């Protein structure tokens, strides 16, 4: 009889615990958009230096700015367009315009059960104008939500 009660009690507790766990609301606390992480380097010193003024917007996106005359931005973060195989950005560094064009592949990636899915990218090629940009060095072609440097822009 004691065994019966123990087992029934155990079954009840197990069921209640499982129900509580399954009903716990989940929230996404992780980064869910893959961005290119681009630090700015001064060509003359080869040291990282934020432009005095930085404006960036996507090519053909009108006036929707990612950075708008921002100061103290030593590293820009630029999201790629997952619905296309290429996209471009217009950069205004210290008043001078340059354009970067990127060609890439996109593929779905599970962030977590709480956050769901996003797109990661693999960079195929990169081209850019050289008005104020001196050179761009590719450091990592895989563009993910991980906090790691993808390009270095020397200006």
């Amino acid at each position, binding site marked *: 009889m004691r065994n019966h009660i123990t*087992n029934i009690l155990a079954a009840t507790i197990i069921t209640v615990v499982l129900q509580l766990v399954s009903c716990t609301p989940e929230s996404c606390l992780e980064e869910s958009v893959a961005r290119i992480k681009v630090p700015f380097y001064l060509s003359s010193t080869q040291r990282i230096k934020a432009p005095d003024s930085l404006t960036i917007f996507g090519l053909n996106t009108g006036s929707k700015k990612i950075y708008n005359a921002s100061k103290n931005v030593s590293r820009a973060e630029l999201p790629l367009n997952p619905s296309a195989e290429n996209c471009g950005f217009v950069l205004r560094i210290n008043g001078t315009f340059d354009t970067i064009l990127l060609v890439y592949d996109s593929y779905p990636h599970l962030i977590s059960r709480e956050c769901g899915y996003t797109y990661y990218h693999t960079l195929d090629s990169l081209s850019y104008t050289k008005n104020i940009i001196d050179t761009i060095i590719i450091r990592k072609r895989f563009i993910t939500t991980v906090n790691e440097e993808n390009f270095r822009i020397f200006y």
Partner: protein
Amino acid sequence: MVSGQTEPPDTVEIPLKIRLGADVTGPLLYLTDRTTLNTELFISADLNTKTGIFLGGGFSDYKYSQYNYEYLSRGFYVKAGVDFNLLRPEMARGKYWAGAGLRYGLSLFNSGVPSFEFENYWGPVSSSVPSSDYIGHYLEAAPGFKAEMFKNFTMGWSLNIRKLIFSGAGKDLRPIYFPGYGIGGESMSYGISYYLVWNIPYKKINVIVKKEEPEESEGSETR
């Protein structure tokens, strides 16, 4: 060589059993949550009073959706291993089991993402991941307790601690859930099972019971 002076050892007759069981946790939870159905049946057989072999399998149908994606997973799994009873035979008497099972699990399933969406600078993105077949592997440790309630009918529970070996997919599309293992996005998963078991005794063995040494009383009684 004749030891006529020693007492014959006490023995106890222990039935070795074949067990057919079902995990009722999955069907019970399905009554309250229609998005997940798990069923599991198993057969096990005592090799001796301490050790048994275990073979189980089940079916799982899992649906999950939240504000930004839907996920489906459906398939079968088998798991095989060894059960260890930690109770002394004279205590267990073939009626009680308290110990742990160690198992290897193999899961064959189909999973896909019918829709997911997110938004970034370029606007909202809606997409999907087509369903694919996967084979996942895992190890399981299942400590628990079972007791005979009626003749040849046992009930009991186990905690299931699982270690992922391979989820069947690459790192980008790890299955959120796969049959037998549970939440596949993590390297460990945990669960609880509650079993109803039918026992079939197939053999009886006599086990020698170690006599406990009587405690020696020292000197005379004191007050």
